[in-house]
């Protein structure tokens, strides 16, 4: 592990943060009365789209993981399709978890589902890009002493911080402040977004600070 790796990681994360910021700014150019709170669902779609595309670009360009170099077209296509299936399965899984956590079952289905989509974007998409549609690798990364590179380490941190952000986002909902962002699921999506951004910022710093202690088995 070298400092250049960390630098690359930092730049990649800045791009991701940039994509989140762009998702706030760009739609307001060609859409009237666009705002995060009022047209929340539109923003969710944009944000999901932007973050996914940046992740894809990052995946295609610097190739942090060198092992997936089988080049047959059919393999790529099946891999892509598999990724899509994984993504949708994760969306549904999150939706079910939200409902189990107390989200309304029948009302606001679209809102809940889009929240699941945005949370999947922050968590599942980076996993898919970095680890591929391989559930075992995921499980390995998200266990103690399971990471094998700084990329996986940062993935771990951003994913966990996204989840924690979404979890913390649920807390303002019962308060009687009567703010527009307290409506389900806005506070949760905002919490997830802040958690994701915070994870993006923290993970390079954390890795940089602990670079002496971190030893990966593969490196």
């Amino acid at each position, binding site marked *: 592990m070298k400092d250049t790796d960390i630098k690359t990681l930092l730049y990649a994360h800045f791009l991701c943060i940039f994509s989140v910021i762009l998702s706030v700014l760009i739609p307001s150019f060609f859409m009237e009365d666009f705002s995060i709170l009022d047209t929340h669902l539109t923003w969710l779609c944009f944000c999901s789209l932007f973050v996914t595309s940046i992740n894809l670009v990052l995946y295609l360009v610097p190739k942090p993981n060198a092992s997936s170099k089988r080049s047959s077209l059919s393999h790529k296509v099946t891999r892509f399709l598999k990724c899509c299936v994984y993504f949708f399965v994760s969306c549904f899984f999150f939706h079910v978890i939200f409902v189990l*956590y107390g989200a309304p079952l029948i009302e606001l289905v679209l809102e809940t589902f889009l929240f699941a989509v945005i949370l999947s974007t922050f968590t599942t998409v980076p996993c898919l890009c970095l680890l591929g549609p391989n559930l075992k690798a995921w499980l390995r990364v998200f*266990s103690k*002493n*399971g990471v094998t590179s700084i990329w996986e380490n940062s993935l771990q941190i951003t994913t966990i911080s996204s989840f924690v952000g979404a979890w913390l986002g649920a807390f303002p909902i019962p*308060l009687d402040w009567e703010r527009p962002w307290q409506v389900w699921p806005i506070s949760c999506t905002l919490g997830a977004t802040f958690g994701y951004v915070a994870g993006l910022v923290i993970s390079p710093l954390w890795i940089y600070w602990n670079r002496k202690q971190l030893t990966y088995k593969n490196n």
Partner: protein
Amino acid sequence: MGWLLNSLSPERLLRGNDSSSVAERPKYQLVLWPTVMNSFSCLTRMQKVSVLLFLVWVCFFFYAGIALFTSGFLLTRLELTNYSSCQEPPGPGFLAWGSQGKPGACWMASRFSRVVLVLIDALRFDFAQPQRSHTSGEPPVSLPFLGKLGSLQRLLEIQPHHARLYRSQVDPPTTTMQRLKALTTGSLPTFIDAGSNFASHAILEDNLIKQLNSAGRQVVFMGDDTWKDLFPGAFSKAFFFSSFNVKDLHTVDNGILEHLYPTMDSGEWDVLIAHFLGVDHCGHKHGPHHPEMAKKLTQMDQVIQGLVERLENDTLLVVAGDHGMTVNGDHGGDSELEVSAALFLYSPTPLFPSAPPEEPEAIPQVSLVPTLALLLGLPIPFGNIGEVMTELFSGGEDSQPDSSALAQASALHINAQQVSRFLHTYSAATQDLQVKELHRLQNLFSKASADYQRLLQSPNEAEATLQTVITELQQFLRGARAICIESWARFSLVRMAGGAALLAATCFLCLLASQWATSPAFSFRPLLLMPVAWALAGATLYAGLLTTTSLKLDLVVLGAVAAVASLLPFLWKAWGSCRSKKPLPTLISIPGPVLLLLLIRLATFFSDSFVVAEARATPFLLGSLILLLVVQRHWEGQLLVPKLLTIPRLGSSTLTGPPRHSGGYALRLGIGLLLCTRLAGLFHRCPEETPACHSSPWLSPLASMVGGRAKNLWYGACVGALVALLVAVRLWLRHYGNLKSPEPPVLFVRWGLPLMALGTAAYWALVSGADEAPPRLRALVAGASLVLPRAVVGLAAAGLMLLLWKPVTVLVKAGTGTPRTRTVLTPFSGPPTSQADLDYVVPQIYRHMQEEFRGRLERTKSQGPLTVAAYQLGSVYSAAMVTALTVLAFPLLLLHAERISLVFLLLFLQSFLLLHLLAAGIPITTPGPFAVPWQAVSAWALMATQTFYSTGHQPVFPAIHWHAAFVGFPEGHGSSTWLPALLVGANTFASHLLFAVGCPLLLLWPFLCESQGPRKRRQPPGSEAKGRVRPEEEEEEEEEEEEEEEEPLMEMRLRGAPHHFNAALLQLGLKYLFVFGIQILACALAASILRRHLMVWKVFAPKFIFEAIGFIVSSVGLLLGIALVMRVDGAVSSWFKKLVLAQQR
């Protein structure tokens, strides 16, 4: 002294004798057995008793803290016993206008000589509001309660100067007794009075009825018998009807109607009071939206119509509701619908100077008291703080505007003088009232009084002065009311702080002691003696101090002093150990995430929004804790084979055998738990504060359902839930083999439980269809609904008794088996030299037993011969616990609405899943100290709270299920109050009780799960592969061999180390008390810090009270649960003893 029993084969025994530690002792002293056994059980019994007593002692600390805090927080108002009288005017110079020498005049000339007061309980304002359907184009809303009082509307339209409708603003608490007190004394009953709604006492303060009596008027009463308790002997004629049976809509009303018109026509009355209860009972039983409400209101309308026709010119008719009702028909709180009641006045002669306003005026309810008093020519009751309704003193339609205004000012002035006198007397008696505000009011009053005097001297003054005088007097009266409302919620800060500090110190003690209990060298001896001695010393010192200074002995303070005195040595010890050895954080062993969750939970008590939303917040936190447990297990690598961690990520590995299974098992348990929690959340009762929320319709009893088919389906579902619960418990018991014993508790499980279920189902069928029963069967139905619940409760009690009598449910009776040749008893005399001896002995006995059973069973060739005996003994504690919980659940279930049975089923399922999930993560430490992890205790406590909500409760008084008091007592309880209180309390705190009693399961379950666990884990992967190719018989044989090697000891491991077992029970109890204790501490702190908060009486105070009672119920339940485990332990000991005695022969 000690002993050793071994089940070694002769050659192993020889080996044992060769080893030095055993060889030194004398051997084969079989005669010593009984005495040895006794001494041993004596030791453990002492430990058990000290564990229980220590827990009781800790509970006492908590109780003392709660009592001290409550005495400072929930203050009652001081009731003055001064009386107003005609001869003693409230102030000088009031007779200038008014008396005019008429007879019967007192402070003012009487305007009416007679009053008919019709109190319609729970007559909400909109019940009486006129319907103006003709004004708007839209079709009128047809709700059952709207526009049914047509006679009021007609009177208002035809005789606008004779009648007036008001929206009377009621002060909470909106319970009938408090309202009656307010309506007669004109004062503000305080919060704490709400508790004595069913035990009403005579009013000692000055009141209207008393004034009427002393003026020699005849008061005739008919209706609600609450009045009998409030005003004993005050009525010249009275017809009382029981108010307690809220299911009975008609008895009271029909009884009144029977006497009302004859009494009225007889003319032997001056004041006639009729208190109708039908509307209120209809609200309680059906809610305001039921067609029955329309019938009831129409009946009330006819009553009013009949009264109006009989009224004479000197009579005033007052129709009043004492409070309103919520959309569910309940009352007691302070929501808008509850505090707005209707008030209607009518007189055959013109009374009002102007036509009624479009929107009826809102007035405080207590205004009626001074108004009625002055209209009747009586003194205003001494403690009244109401303000007269000036309109009624204007002298009718035709009087001059000036003189009418003067009359109004005069009435107001008398009223103000009376209130001023009251304030003066009250502030002299106590220091409750704020001095500064009082001064301001006094100045205001003297200025207004001076103005009024000046006005009297020069009556031809301009109208403007008159108006200022009236406004000033009104300002004074309103200010006085405000200051009283404010100060009757004054707190004793010292006591509150003391109570909170005591609670905090006790929580700290729980934390420390639970930590000490885990250490291996923990001794029980110093637990009790020192603290009790200190407490006695402290208490006697305090009492002595008080007697020397001749102050009054306050029991609450005495208890608190004792608690503090006995806490001191603990804190001193903690301080010492903290300074000398370890820093504090190591003492606090709560893992980080659990601590965070607990802190979040505590923080939620400080926000009224979160207290209101706790029904949804608790499942959220519970779900978070569950997922945390699952994720933690994954994080620690238990979902994956360790080898996989080093495999490159794209390597396709299929090596996921048993470990993955256990990981997926945890995940499945977690998801199942979340699902159960969510389903239980469907049974949700909404707090009043969230109007957007809809309560679950499934909380209402089936009797209130209209549709026949849906009702039948629901009934089927409820009975299905009962049967499912029963079958689940039986299957569980059968799985562990506890259903095979011929002992009485097992017989009870086999026959008694189905009988209880049958009784419950039959009772539900009767109750849900009681109204539809043909008249011939009415008596039968009534009798059955009296007998059935009592029978079920009796069965439950019998079951518990049986369980306590013979808790050991093991198949084989002692002494029937012949000992096998290779089993040899090797008892020793002399004391057990080490703890290891004790640890060693009991498992050896157990193993010996096992071998013996095996031999017997092999001979009889029964099925599953190897494990049956082991399972029976291995699950003997849990089996007793589960049986006790099931038996306990049935009577509690009976107290709830039928459909809550589904929640009870979910409750059992949920706790089963949670126990499995927790057990999956706990390693079994065979010899060492046992511990219950914090996450287990927290999850258990959270689940108790969640079930409290999902059984349709809310921590507010209107949400209490009062109907529970009628289960088994359809006719009410007469005068006894503790029985209905017990029933209602059991209904409200059912979940606290069940979870607290079941708490020891947290300790027992991991040992229970050992039976499935080790066998799978023990097999190395290689042998499993080998096993597959072999024929089945061989495999079985191998299993048998393995079991011979190491049979799962399960709960006998606990018996193997009685010292650690007792320590673990103590630790479990302390942890559970701690989790609930910090909740009550947080509630107390929230209530004291936010005591000026808008929501303190609405949210924080009820929450504190509910939490405090919940804590008391939980602690009692916990003690019972632990005592039950100890009883089983003792029974197992004596069972062993009997067995060994039989061996001897």
